[in-house]
């Protein structure tokens, strides 16, 4: 029942501020196997040109909520990689 497409669910990754500048885009799409986590998304994004600037402690949000590296991600999820915040 599970074909090759299901094994490579597309996940939308948003980049902001310094990270958007370094990677030259505000949005990426990554394909990961079922069971993938936020940590896997980060690892994949770090492979893009400029992605190695994303620090190990970078804040990540999954569908608008802060999550840890272990949070599972799947098709349709929106992962946001957030550089150090500077509001206020």
């Amino acid at each position, binding site marked *: 029942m599970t074909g090759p497409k299901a094994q490579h669910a597309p996940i939308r990754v948003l980049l902001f501020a310094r990270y958007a*500048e370094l990677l030259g885009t505000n949005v990426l799409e990554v394909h990961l196997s079922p069971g993938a986590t936020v940590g896997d998304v980060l690892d994949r994004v770090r492979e893009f040109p400029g992605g190695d600037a994303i620090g190990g402690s970078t804040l990540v949000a999954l569908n*608008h909520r*802060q999550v840890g590296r272990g949070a599972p991600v799947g098709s349709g999820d929106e992962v946001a990689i*957030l550089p150090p915040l500077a*509001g206020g």
Partner: protein
Amino acid sequence: MMVLTRVPIDLAPLVEEVAAARRGGIATFIGLVRNHHEGREVVSLDYSAYEPMAEAVCAEIVAEAEERWPVKVAVRHRLGALAIGDAAVAIAAAGDHREEAFAACRYAIEELKRRVPIWKRERYADGTEGWVEGQGVGSREEERGVPQ
């Protein structure tokens, strides 16, 4: 009420929003664009946000403050191009007494700076620009302390 706005922030509507006949004290905070930062002369700046998350986190912070103290809280944060002296953020907290109004106002600005996904790019007098890496979660100062 939306928190994020691209027009100048006026404190008066926030004060009206939280005022009520049984409330005796309103504490507010306004964060203004300064003309200097770490020894460099700033001429203007741009705020950008992860907008839906910023709205959600601000609503969460307001709800936390209103649960922790008997207060009503309102928050605005400006986005886009700002000039020196412009209000970047404004918070109003009304309570029966000043203690809770001050405490809630202070809580809201501290949590906003720590948790709301907003970024600031400054333009300096020497023509250069730079991202400001503030005190929020994920900032360089905190990098060592954040669990992986």
